[in-house]
């Protein structure tokens, strides 16, 4: 007989083998010069550990748990918590998860659907979603862009997410002929630019929903691969289910936009003329994201920021300054040449100017703001000086 496996020897110690296996191991131990020592080593370690754990044994006086009584308490707590809180507040309570009104990921996703070249930009921004206000954060993705070894963890992350996600709704994009038809299709009034005389194209992005179960050890592997094994993910992350619902959204497209998602494969059209500059107005109701109530978003955000090069103190300070449940966090990457806070009918928005030498067909500016739980994005090529005025004029 070959030497028994580690498993078999350990199981032998715990008397977890069947009689024939036990007999075979006993017989082997008599003749093998090495295995009695292996057995002794495993057995001694098991005994030492067991004796330490023995100190944790509950005292004999510990009360037996009565499951019937516990279930009755559980149900009482459940109904009490459901009845006490008004419906609206319940939506925002941790138990019912919260409504993350705006999703940067969704905006970036939409941008990336319209401008394929920015897709890799979108893929980096996986976790920060929010609603009531816009907060910018400067991130230097330079290192991640250039070093292929740093890209690996992100690819591993994307792979894990795509393998684990269960897609329940996946509508295809469609078009609408008129403002009224677009409004009907998306279920909310689609706003247009009243001062543009050319008629826009209405694109409808389909609704999407998926859920996925997080695998802590694989996520930790991602951190390890990124060279940050010191960043420890909370154990409660494991098995946590995150579900995401993205409602239908509308994109109103003016002018001739280069590479605007038409997969015609043709060369880009000539520059848009000043008379009808390319402008796309994205209007997306905030996605709903359900995460376990005990999932510490701030902690995860801190880990994320450290992963992209922030020091722990900076990361903590920033994360503490942001209410992660209601803020649209807009990462400013090196593609963003400048950004400024602007005022759109009393609402704070962020106007970003892109400088993207590799992607001349992409957007040159994006104005993002959140109004009434709807995320608006005004994206264009060319001059951004009238962006705020255009945004304020939406009807």
């Amino acid at each position: 007989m070959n030497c028994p496996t580690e498993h078999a020897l350990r199981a032998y110690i715990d008397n977890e083998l069947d009689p024939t296996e036990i007999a075979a191991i006993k017989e082997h131990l008599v003749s093998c010069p090495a295995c009695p020592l292996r057995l002794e080593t495993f057995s001694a370690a098991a005994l030492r550990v067991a004796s330490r754990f023995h100190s944790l044994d509950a005292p004999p006086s510990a009360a037996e748990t009565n499951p019937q009584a516990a279930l009755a308490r559980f149900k009482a707590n459940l109904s009490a918590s459901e009845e006490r809180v008004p419906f609206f507040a319940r939506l925002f309570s941790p138990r019912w998860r919260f409504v993350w009104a705006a999703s940067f990921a969704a905006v970036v996703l939409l941008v990336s659907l319209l401008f394929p070249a920015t897709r890799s930009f979108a893929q980096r921004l996986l976790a920060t979603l929010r609603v009531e206000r816009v907060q910018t954060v400067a991130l230097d993705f330079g290192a991640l862009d250039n070093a292929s070894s740093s890209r690996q963890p992100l690819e591993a992350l994307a792979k894990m997410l795509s393998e684990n996600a269960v897609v329940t709704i996946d509508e295809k994009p469609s078009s609408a002929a008129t403002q009224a038809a677009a409004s009907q299709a998306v279920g909310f009034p689609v706003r247009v630019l009243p001062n543009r005389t050319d008629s826009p194209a209405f694109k409808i992005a389909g609704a999407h929903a998926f859920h996925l179960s997080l695998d802590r050890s694989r996520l930790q592997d991602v951190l390890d691969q990124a060279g940050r094994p010191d960043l420890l993910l909370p154990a409660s992350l494991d098995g946590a289910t995150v579900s995401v619902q993205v409602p239908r959204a509308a994109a109103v497209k003016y002018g001739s936009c280069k590479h605007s998602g038409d997969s015609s494969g043709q060369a880009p059209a000539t520059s848009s003329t000043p008379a009808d500059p390319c402008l796309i107005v994205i209007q997306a109701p905030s996605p709903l994201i359900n995460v376990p109530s005990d999932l510490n978003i701030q902690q995860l955000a801190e880990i994320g920021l450290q992963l992209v090069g922030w020091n722990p103190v900076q990361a903590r300070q920033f994360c503490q300054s942001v209410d992660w449940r209601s803020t649209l966090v807009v990462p400013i990457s090196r593609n963003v040449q400048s950004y400024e806070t602007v005022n759109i009918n009393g609402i704070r928005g962020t106007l970003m100017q892109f400088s993207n030498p590799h992607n001349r067909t992409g957007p040159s500016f994006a104005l993002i703001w959140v109004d009434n739980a709807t995320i608006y994005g005004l994206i264009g090529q060319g001059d951004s000086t009238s962006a705020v005025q255009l945004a304020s004029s939406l009807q």
Partner: protein
Amino acid sequence: MEPLSNTLSPVAAPADSTTRKLSVQAFEELFLSTYPRVVALLRRMLGDSGRAEEIANEAFLKLYNTTLPPSVRANIPGWLYRTAMNLGIDDLRARTRHTQVAQAASQAVSSSAQPENGLQRVLRSETQQRVRLALSKLKPEWSQILLLRASGYSYKEIASHLEVSAASVGTLLIRAEAGFEKCYLELFGEKD
């Protein structure tokens, strides 16, 4: 509790993509059969019966509220055990950070009517603190298997709860024990 029409066996729920959650009946059956064992496991981990029950309730609440993916529905008790133990480990880590482990451990001992003399009690309390500190530092997978084993779970149960192959439990135990001893040695500088 909201009525749910689909009934699942709590032990081996079919991976039916139309079934979003456990039926009330299946949930209650699972609660009654599993709750005492989960609480006992957490009590051993945390040394605090009240906290053990709180965390067990939290784990069941998660189960109640969560839409489980098909991969989980095939082994719901396993998901529940792992979730409860992970919540316990997070709790241990939080307490470790606030250096409350010592207090909790000594409270747990002093409140029990144990026929131990003073010295035994002190030694036992010290070992408890140290084991819990080590458990909070180890890879969660190792802490889980050591706790299950110390609580008398069979290899078959361990394999099912941790979703590992039954023929690897012994090897995993050896790894976890070696990891535990190394961690213990680094923390406290003693082996025996």
